[in-house]
């Protein structure tokens, strides 16, 4: 496998401590609020437990995302669908963090800066009072919400909002934002935007759509499919091929692995690349490698024939196995444009599977 700048294994190692890590750089719209909430809730409910802190994290996530949507500049002002934002959140043992980068009009920058600075200057009691005042007075900006979203973000996180404005051109600026809910004595006041800078540089240079590290069980897969479907440039056939391929790769990882792993979607030369990495027993990894090597050496016709033979002989398969039907499906849909790698990791193995469509 070609050495990638930021492979699934590197992502896994870099975010080893994170229960969940997600960065999304693609089309955003109202409907994705529930998608991100599903992803967050899967972690909160199954991994971290339904504590007050974790419930607050989900609330904060919704506020941040909705706030981002509200303030994103777009030519298409009559639809709430805006291109090319960055949205990130992670569950680290010491904090829950949300980052966003979105484009705003230059004309909005001063008002937004003032709103954030006002909020950052207030203590908890004053913020509560400001929230009530705004709610009662109904001072609506033309974006709606009276700045209530930003106030709630500060209140729920218990932290100042870290932010920056970066000019894009004469009409637009990028609004960089970071909210952190700290725990275990972590001091979020010392945070900077350095991590966001590094992440932004990486995802821009690799034209990343999505990086996800976390649970790869069935529940986790469904919202991830939706994020993929939003970013196939309206190409229905690509959307379907990519969707089926990604499902097979993730269900393969879930079946053979230890249920946690990495998904990375990115573009290379206008093609969509799906990369899945997961930990698994070395022996299982070796068996997967052997099967994939056989498939890799087959021609299109041989693959077709092998697939049909397997299908015709399903009666001979044990109940819980498809005996490689999924891997064959991936090989066929990708036209053989896939590669794979197995590395020792944590006393077991880390299997990476990459498909280009």
């Amino acid at each position, binding site marked *: 496998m070609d050495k990638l700048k930021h492979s699934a294994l590197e992502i896994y190692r870099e975010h080893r401590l994170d229960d969940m890590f997600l960065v999304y750089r693609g089309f955003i719209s109202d409907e994705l609020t529930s998608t991100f909430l599903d992803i967050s809730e899967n972690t909160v409910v199954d991994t971290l437990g339904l504590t007050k802190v974790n419930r607050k994290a989900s609330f904060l996530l919704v506020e941040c995302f909705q706030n981002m949507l509200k303030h994103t500049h777009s030519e298409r002002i009559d639809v709430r669908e805006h291109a090319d934002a960055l949205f990130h959140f992670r569950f680290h043992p010491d904090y829950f963090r949300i980052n966003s980068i979105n484009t705003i009009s230059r004309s909005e920058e001063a008002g937004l800066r003032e709103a954030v600075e006002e909020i950052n200057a207030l203590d908890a009691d004053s913020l509560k009072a400001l929230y009530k005042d705004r709610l009662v007075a109904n001072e609506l900006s033309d974006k709606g919400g009276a700045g209530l979203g930003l106030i709630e973000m500060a209140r729920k996180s218990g932290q100042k909002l870290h932010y920056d404005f970066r000019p894009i051109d004469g009409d637009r600026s990028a609004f960089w934002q970071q909210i952190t809910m700290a725990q275990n004595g972590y001091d979020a006041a010392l945070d900077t935007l350095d991590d966001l800078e590094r992440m932004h540089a990486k995802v821009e240079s690799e034209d990343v759509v999505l990086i996800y590290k976390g649970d790869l069980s069935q529940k986790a*897969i*469904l919202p991830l499919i939706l994020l993929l479907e939003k970013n196939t440039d309206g190409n*229905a*056939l690509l959307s379907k091929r990519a969707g089926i391929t990604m*499902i*097979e790769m993730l269900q393969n990882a879930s079946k053979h692995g230890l249920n946690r792993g990495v998904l990375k979607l990115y573009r290379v030369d206008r093609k969509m690349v799906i990369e899945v990495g997961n930990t698994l027993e070395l022996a299982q990894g070796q068996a997967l490698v052997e099967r994939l090597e056989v498939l890799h050496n087959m021609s299109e016709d041989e693959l077709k024939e092998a*697939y049909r033979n397997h*299908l*015709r002989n399903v009666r001979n398969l044990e109940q819980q196995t498809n005996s490689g039907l*999924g891997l064959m499906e991936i090989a066929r849909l990708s036209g053989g444009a896939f590669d794979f790698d197995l590395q020792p990791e944590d006393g077991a193995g880390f299997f990476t599977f990459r498909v280009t469509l």
Partner: protein
Amino acid sequence: MLPEAYHIAATAETPAVTLDASAGVYRIEGRSLPENAHQFYQPFIDWFVQLLETPGRQLELELYLDYYNSSTGRYLMELMLALEERSNTSNVGILWKADADDDIMLEKGEEFRQLLKIPVQVKALES
């Protein structure tokens, strides 16, 4: 005696299923991605086996799937083989529907048509 009908709504990972012998409707429609396709599909396979214990029946199973995983593919094949095995005493067929621009699902329908001895009609639907 006819088996009791199934009327199951679609979910995010399983299709809508209508199996109603008294109404003559046999339809599976939507998206099929269950991790455990055996658990979802085996009851329907058993249902058809029970239905076709009585010879001389006539049925067409309509399949209109948006997309499905390989685990589903395996159990769709099992279901169709169960129908095929009983085709000497009953008149059974498959109507495989797909959107006209959905090359993937049209190809899948064609594959089943070539693999099975019972008639499989592949119908491309214009939008």
